[in-house]
């Protein structure tokens, strides 16, 4: 029982890591960023490259990945998303195109592959990151063996959620962002620089995805297409939790993680994933605004 709950918790923390960034970009701006999964992928590749070229471990790669993906997120906002505010469904399509471009950039070593140059750590193949020994083992609680790295991920995701909560509810920028979430026109009329805040929020959300990617690299194989299923998972969490509600995303990640863990324990992983989809479809049909949304029409 303890191990099922722990596995559920660990799945929930991974979901939350991906969903946190989306909760901000989608919740705040209504931008459906299909390239969010690619931000996770870039984060994971940053971990690969950092250990390959700089000899850095996972912990040191996290701030680097945050900066790299935040910068890319900022560029995407400036070049693409900014032109599409008010055309929500179109952001979905345009960022899907961006996602393809990013995948190809990695697969083709930024295009150098055409010149016959391959960059170690990039390319179409699979990459791996080795864990530092102190994160590798297991410890036991109440007779159940628990992986140190899984616990570490849970810890980091809790810290990041707390940090995001602090930024949104205890800083001036966060207050402005929440004002934009409630009513963008009114916020702009009150003198909030919505463009600047939106760009910052997009960069921060992308940065979080980058950190998530580094953590993923610790227990998953890294490859150019790894992001696509993640963006789906992330959206399921955010939509089920309720658009614009940070607490909703956290709770819905926890619920989905536990359901996934339980279903996987009873049957298998494929069935567990199917159950997740069924649950989310039912929730959206039952409560289209999500379980914990406060935003009215």
């Amino acid at each position, binding site marked *: 029982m303890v191990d099922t709950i722990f596995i559920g918790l660990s799945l929930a923390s991974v979901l939350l890591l991906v969903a946190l960034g989306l909760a901000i970009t989608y919740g705040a701006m209504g931008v459906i960023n299909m390239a969010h999964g690619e931000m996770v992928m870039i984060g994971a590749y940053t971990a690969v490259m950092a250990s390959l070229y700089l000899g850095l471990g996972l912990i040191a790669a996290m701030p680097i990945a945050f900066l790299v993906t935040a910068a890319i997120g900022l560029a995407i906002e400036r070049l693409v998303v900014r032109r599409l505010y008010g055309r929500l*469904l179109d952001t*979905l399509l345009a960022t899907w195109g961006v996602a*393809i471009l990013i995948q190809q950039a990695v697969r083709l070593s930024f295009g150098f592959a055409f010149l016959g140059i391959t960059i170690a750590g990039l390319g179409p193949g699979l990459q791996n990151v080795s864990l530092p020994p102190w994160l590798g083992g297991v410890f036991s609680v109440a007779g159940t063996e628990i992986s140190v790295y899984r616990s570490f991920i849970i810890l980091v995701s809790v810290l990041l959620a707390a940090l995001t909560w602090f930024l949104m509810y205890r800083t001036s920028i966060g207050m402005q962002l929440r004002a934009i979430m409630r009513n963008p026109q009114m916020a702009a009329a009150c003198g909030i620089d919505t463009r600047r805040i939106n760009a910052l929020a997009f960069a921060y959300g992308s940065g979080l995805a980058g950190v998530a990617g580094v953590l993923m690299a610790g227990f998953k194989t890294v490859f150019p297409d790894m992001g696509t299923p993640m963006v*789906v998972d992330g959206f399921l969490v955010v939509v089920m939790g309720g658009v614009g509600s940070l607490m909703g995303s956290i709770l819905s990640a926890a619920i989905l993680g536990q359901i996934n863990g339980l279903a996987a324990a009873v049957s298998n992983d*494929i069935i567990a994933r199917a159950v997740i989809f069924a649950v989310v479809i039912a929730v*959206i049909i039952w409560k289209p605004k999500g379980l914990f949304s406060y935003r009215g029409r």
Partner: protein
Amino acid sequence: MRLTKSGLNTAAYVVFIALILLAPLVFDAFWLNRLSKYLVFGMLGVAIALSWGYAGILNLGQGLFFGLGAYGIAMSLKLASTTSLAQGSDTPIPDFMLWNAQPGAATDLCCITPGSFLWIPFQSVWFGIAAGIVLPVLVAFALGMIMFRKRISGVFISIITLSVVLLMRLLLVQAQPLTNGFNGLTDLGYLTVLGVEFDPYMPQTYYLIAISLALVLLGTRLLVETRSGLILQAIRDDDRRARFLGFDVPRYQAFFFCVSAAISGYAGILYVMASEFASPTFMDLSFSITMVVWAAVGGRNSILGACIGAILINMIEATVSETPALMEAWRVVIGLAFVLAVLFLPRGLAGVATGLRDWIVARRGGAAASLAEPAEKRS
């Protein structure tokens, strides 16, 4: 003859249909088979344009209907293949079922694997064809009635349809003894109806697909011109206003959602005839989004534009995919084209064509002709 906007629209349809019907004069069997697959994708473009452009429903799970259609006919054709007939039983048995058979189970469709009895009616090809169209429509009807009655709209529809197609794909893969899982259905027989054998490399298969596409194109075009079609467009532009005017909004949306599903299911049937396999990849998320890409590049508001967009993109892709390096570069081009089309050409290639048409009419037809047609028609 004086040039008018609707005259040029009709001309575009006539030219396109003439081109696809005359293609066998130019192409050899190999290319004709390829082209027939792209015409099927063009049919998917029509389905997307109908649901996205005219109904405002961005369905990210169109692959579900395509896949259901494909599996419907593929099950029948699997039973009609020579290997299924040669498994040492009176009735045909798919080879993969023998590999997945329960120990000691009778070699018969009734009970060889759990659920294999579902295959029994598919011994009739007509049942497979009917299932390939009826099943998508039933699913679309159920899904549509639930979604539209609950007034779910916009991106939530996209998320639901996307989840449904991924859910279905998982179940399809999971039901390995029934569907051959990841491997899909391969080694299919040819479809033989009314004494005609549809070998994918013979002209009759191409003509069947080309004529089907022409009929679907014209039928859809006429359908959106009807009163229901106009009400549908009114709902797309402002559903609340349509509701206040007393229209039963969910019924119209569900109806056109079903039509779109039927077209996709039929496309699935034709695709299996041309390609001789059905696979769970039809229900991949990327395939469903790729269909939307075709429609967006061709022109989401234009039935013919979305159709041509799908065919063109796939023809270019087939030409460049001969060299692997170009193939990778092509994906870059597709990604870039998509971003640029959404940013700068929201009406796609059809928007360019419409602009060109209006320019020609203004130059040649004179101002009087364009004044006589106050309502801007969609091409």
